[in-house]
């Protein structure tokens, strides 16, 4: 079976600074992969490359078998993308943004969106830009779940969330991925709670992948340690 995401020999520099050299990895269908790394290790860069928003100096990524810079509309429709900081079209209000996105996705799950929105104590005509960070993230994720994509790409989904919200989304994601047809590729710089969510763990350091293996295996190799402990051990404290 072809992997959902396949990256081959990605090499990229910003100016003269090496981000990665010959990066290779794959994500299989039905898995939740967590890309973990400290700030500046190139987590967002990978997401940009995956979605065709950055042309690396060398190498190729394929998503659903299509080259990243030539993703077909259909493929784009089956990828749910969460930008770093839960960025959305915040000039919309809650009803407008639903109206906007609804027409693009044939499988649109209205209830998934409004279910999440109901948890927010806001009026539906409130503009997104006037909401708090946590509320905005809920809107962004609500849209993603309503879209019902086959692949979710989440860039630092936990950023700026308090533990309550973070837990809420971990649960939502688990629920989403449970039947094995959905794939999730997420990055995070907060490692706490990740072992509960991710199937595969990929730890990125400056210029290379330190580790890529199933979380379960990793935890077994390091009994009595949390994923966070393992992460710090591998990457160093600072």
């Amino acid at each position, binding site marked *: 079976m072809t992997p959902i995401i396949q990256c081959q020999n990605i090499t990229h*520099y910003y*100016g*003269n600074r090496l981000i990665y050299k010959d990066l290779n990895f794959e994500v299989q269908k039905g898995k939740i992969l967590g890309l973990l790394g400290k700030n500046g290790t190139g987590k967002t860069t990978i997401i940009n490359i995956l979605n065709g928003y950055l*042309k690396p*100096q060398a190498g190729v990524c394929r998503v659903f078998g299509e080259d990243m*810079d*030539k993703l077909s509309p259909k493929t784009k429709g089956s990828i749910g993308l969460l930008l770093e900081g839960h960025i959305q079209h915040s000039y919309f209000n809650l009803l407008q943004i639903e109206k906007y996105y609804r027409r693009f996705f044939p499988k649109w799950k209205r209830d998934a969106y409004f279910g999440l929105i109901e948890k927010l104590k806001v009026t539906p005509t409130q503009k997104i830009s006037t909401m708090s960070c946590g509320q905005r993230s809920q809107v962004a994720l609500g849209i993603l779940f309503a879209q019902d994509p086959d692949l979710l790409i989440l860039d630092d989904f936990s950023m700026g969330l308090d533990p309550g919200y973070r837990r809420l989304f971990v649960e939502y994601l688990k629920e989403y991925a449970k039947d094995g047809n959905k794939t999730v590729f997420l990055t995070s710089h907060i490692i706490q709670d990740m072992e509960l969510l991710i199937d595969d763990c990929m730890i990125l350091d400056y210029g290379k992948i330190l580790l890529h293996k199933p979380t379960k295996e990793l935890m077994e190799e390091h009994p009595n340690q949390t994923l966070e402990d393992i992460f710090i051990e591998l990457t160093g404290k600072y």
Partner: protein
Amino acid sequence: MMKNKESIYILVLLFVTLVALWGIPELVKTATYSNDRYPFVYFSSTEKKLLFKEFDGREDALHDDEGKVYTDKEYDAALPLLNFRQLTVNGEMPDSIDGIAIDPRELRVKQVNFRYGPLNKNTPNPGLYIMYESLPKKAKLESPGDLFRLKNKIEFIDAASNRVNKQKSEQFQTALLKAGYAFPAQWTSGNLNIRKPYDEGYFSLDAQGQLYHIKMVNGRPFIKNTQLDSQIEPAFFAMEEVADKRFYGFLFDKKGNSYILEEDGGKYKTVQLDIDPIHLDADELMIIGNFLYWTVAVQTDKEKHFYALQTETLKRVRYAFVEAKVNKWEDISGKIFPFYLTFRDKHSEYIAPHLHFTAFTAWIANVLLAVLSLFIFHRKSNKKKIFIGIYTLIFGIAGLVALLIMGSSTSRKSPL
């Protein structure tokens, strides 16, 4: 999106180049342009020579066409008809010249000041004119309260109601047809200024190339075919209601001959100015005349010709010419811009793109710039360098500036 990137890059690059092809020379021009300072030339009725007054601050600023240098006093005295006010104040004004007594009134009314330039001809025309009463009851001209158009027919439009004055229009239309005027009109020329001393209406060229005089006398149309010599094909007419009423105005034909159009016992007569034909779309003509002589200056792109004509006959009595000095702008543009773009032509009021080619030697600058561009972009691939070199060679400074603004290629440079 990526597929068309290269071609859109070329499009944007060409756009920036075009902008630079206009903008950079325009900037250099602003910094260097100076008018051609030709000398002021006037025919001396006493010396019978053309007298020059140079403006470049040289010693022999005042001289005649034979090189004789004048002092200020000699110069003023040699041009009594130009400096008569000053000379009269000083009590140095002669009573007569060549035995002809100088009458101050005649001196005044026989003065002619006329200027023609291509801008007079190549200019948009709204197509509306004012028909004054040529025999006003009062001393001053009065606004008729309407305008008229003359193209496929003549129509007077009343200003107060913004409607066609049918009766007046019909009256003039009938008169025009009766006089043989063939519509549509080619052009109509008159003097719209109400402050003119009197009114002679308009001269209009009809569809068959016949020149008609159209005016309003006592509220009625006055329309006459001028019956010009069939050799004369009118190209432009400038109405000049001159003080002594000797002539209606200046007529230029398609060959560039200049005439005055005189009234001749109820008929029309042309008197040709004894000067070489002028190029109506490029040359400028200036006439300063007094009751004895006219000094006519014709400025072409390269030189300025001066003619002294006898006022009565318009026959040439003296001629001189001066070559243009190469001005700084022409000098510089001929060295650094093989070609450049302007939107304004000094010979036309219309805006349109004009590509100007300067000297062949300016291509040397482009060759040097092409070499420079290869140094600037030395890290590019050979294929790109060929493109950069050729592009700079063709477009010169503008091309290089565009390449610097837009970057020489669409892909980011690799640090390797």
